């Protein structure tokens, strides 16, 4: 009898051992990294991120403070799939102001930036541990660029001479297809320089396709920062007016036809409108879109939004910064605008979002700035596992 009791306990013990949960995880499935060089000072701000298809790593496009200019220089960081540092490239200080957007052309990553002296738009290609100039486009003060469905590009720039916002359509080989001017009617260069040098308010310059066969840009127009609609030739068709330079759309994703998921700001307040109707041919006001007042967001928060397919769900992901210095991600159902989930990243030392991208393994890479010790801006990278992303959207 006693031996049986003893055996019973031994079996129980072995059973408990067998219940050990497997908590191993593949390298790179999820991680957090802060890229620091141990220097007192120096500033590194990420702009965008793109997964590298052949090695599972990431190319991060960023900008760094220059000693000889108030503009920020081009900085490229390459990390492996586990977020480990591989190489960095500090472009010559001639090339400044990289725009959000890393585009794959002929299996190579390209991005747009500005020539510091001529202020013209420059296209650069990321090479092996470096970047080189591919093309120079005669448009000064490049502010935003996006890919079009014909694999071309839509570039927004500002002409300081004619005081126009210039919308330029580029082919896939960076040749100018057409270009249109949109009058600002006042000199906005000071605002623009403050934006580029991070001295003043950073403004949400955007470009994209409007769902009616045309395009839109969010930029300087008619004494304001407004969301301007154009036809396929870049000719003005309508506008969603902002309030001077203190209120406008801060991110926009077209959901088909005249439906959009947008965020907007009005002075220090931020609003999300995951289901907005914006006519391509009407004159309207961004303030009239109302939306959900996001009280937790940083007054100067930049908002990034993208339409993604996550776990079979068509979702809109918003990423931005909170007053508590965290990065926050919101997932909305794209057809109904229903909030699916929220996730906060970072704590204590301030974090600011720069951009995000779906990874090769179905996870989410979120790149941002971390102010180490509350003072040194450094690039940080959060990689969420596919399971975490699925959990966020409830699938």
């Amino acid at each position, binding site marked *: 009898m*006693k*031996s049986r009791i003893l055996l019973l306990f031994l079996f129980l013990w072995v059973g408990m051992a067998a219940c050990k*949960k497997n908590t191993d*995880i593949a390298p790179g499935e999820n991680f*957090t*990294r802060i890229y620091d*060089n141990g220097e*007192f000072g120096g500033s590194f701000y990420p702009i965008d991120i793109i997964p590298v298809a052949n090695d599972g790593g990431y190319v991060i496009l960023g900008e760094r403070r220059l000693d000889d200019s108030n503009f920020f220089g081009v900085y490229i960081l390459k990390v492996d799939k586990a977020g480990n540092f591989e190489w960095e490239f500090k472009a010559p200080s001639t090339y400044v102001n990289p725009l959000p957007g890393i585009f794959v052309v002929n299996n190579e990553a390209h991005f747009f930036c500005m020539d510091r002296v001529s202020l013209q738009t420059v296209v650069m290609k990321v090479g092996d541990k470096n970047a080189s100039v591919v093309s120079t486009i005669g448009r000064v003060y490049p502010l935003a660029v996006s890919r079009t469905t014909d694999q071309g590009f839509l570039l927004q720039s500002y002409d300081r001479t004619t005081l126009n916002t210039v919308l330029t359509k580029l082919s896939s080989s960076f040749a100018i297809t057409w270009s249109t001017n949109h009058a600002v009617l006042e000199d906005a260069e000071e605002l623009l320089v403050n934006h580029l040098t991070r001295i003043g308010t950073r403004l949400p310059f955007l470009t994209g396709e409007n769902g009616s066969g045309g395009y839109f840009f969010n930029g300087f127009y008619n004494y304001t920062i407004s969301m301007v609609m154009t036809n396929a030739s870049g000719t003005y068709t309508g506008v969603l007016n902002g309030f001077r330079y203190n209120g406008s759309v801060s991110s926009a994703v077209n959901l088909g036809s005249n439906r959009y998921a947008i965020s907007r700001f009005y002075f220090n307040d931020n609003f999300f409108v995951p289901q907005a109707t914006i006519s391509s041919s009407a004159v309207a006001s961004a303030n009239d879109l109302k939306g959900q007042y996001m009280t937790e967001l940083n007054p100067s928060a930049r908002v990034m939004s993208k339409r993604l397919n996550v776990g079979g769900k068509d979702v809109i992901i918003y990423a931005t910064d909170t007053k508590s210095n965290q990065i926050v991600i919101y997932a909305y159902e794209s057809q109904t605008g229903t909030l699916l989930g929220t996730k906060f*990243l970072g704590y204590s030392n301030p974090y600011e979002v720069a951009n995000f991208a779906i990874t090769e393994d179905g996870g989410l890479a979120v790149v941002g700035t971390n102010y*180490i010790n509350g003072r040194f801006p450094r690039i940080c990278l959060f990689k969420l596992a596919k399971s975490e992303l699925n959990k966020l959207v409830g699938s």
Partner: protein
Amino acid sequence: MLKRFTQPIFYFVLCCFLWGGHSLIALGQYKVKQKPHDKSKVRQKTAFERSQWWLGIKIGGNYTQANPTTRYSLYANTATQATADAYDKKYQSFKRAAMQFGVITSYTFWKGLSVSVQPTFKRSRYIYETNFVWQATTGSDRLEMNQNHVQTCDYLEFPVLLRYDFFRENALKPFLQAGISYAFLLNAFKDVQISGTDFAAGNTAFSNASVNTNTFTLYNPSNFGVAVGGGICYDYGNARFVLECIYKIGLNNITNGAMRYTNNEMNGIADTFDDIKTNNLEISFGLQFPLKYLVTKLYKGVNP
């Protein structure tokens, strides 16, 4: 905060109840039948007398050593002349004491050989330090920051030990024991003390308030290992006093790799766990009572 203390006590009481109850199964008495004129003969032990159950409690302290098998850091060094171990944690072995208490159940089944199961609530602590320096490339601007991390893990342990008593006819008996141990994580948290000097602000020393973070999800829910040890016991009447030492060698990674980067508070202090195995040195004082008695004038416990 209250849960941190009530939870182990609950488990301890539960264990006492369960193991005490189970031991009652073995509780027995045996009436010795001896004829007066057989005093000169050595009486043969019956089957009842050839084994004994013991039940008792133990309490003591322990020290932990953490051995990193794979190192991780939130920081990735982009400096061209970066040293590979610039962000490594500096572990301090067997530095911080913690306590344990539990129940001892043992079954002596053959001469001095026993099997002992000791459900124990154990709080273990290990510590490490991280040091960071930011130095200006030109000039003397410099910032030094030191973080002292104290990791606390509460486990409910189930060691199963095979024990051999030497000189078992003596009241004072040394013993050796060895076995295996399986532990369930009940609770875990860390305290971080941050201090440093800002040479760019007039050599200003700073010390931040301790940061306390729950780290339960960052650990594997269980820990498996082997145990060796020894001790000495002293029989006084039917009571047995035990002073024992057990050295446990952890065989599995106690860090939950899937959750390594999921704690925002840890991100805030730029910390993340390495893969680690732990060794633990435990010293306990125990008191045990036999559960099988001979009904004689002295009502004596069986000594197999």
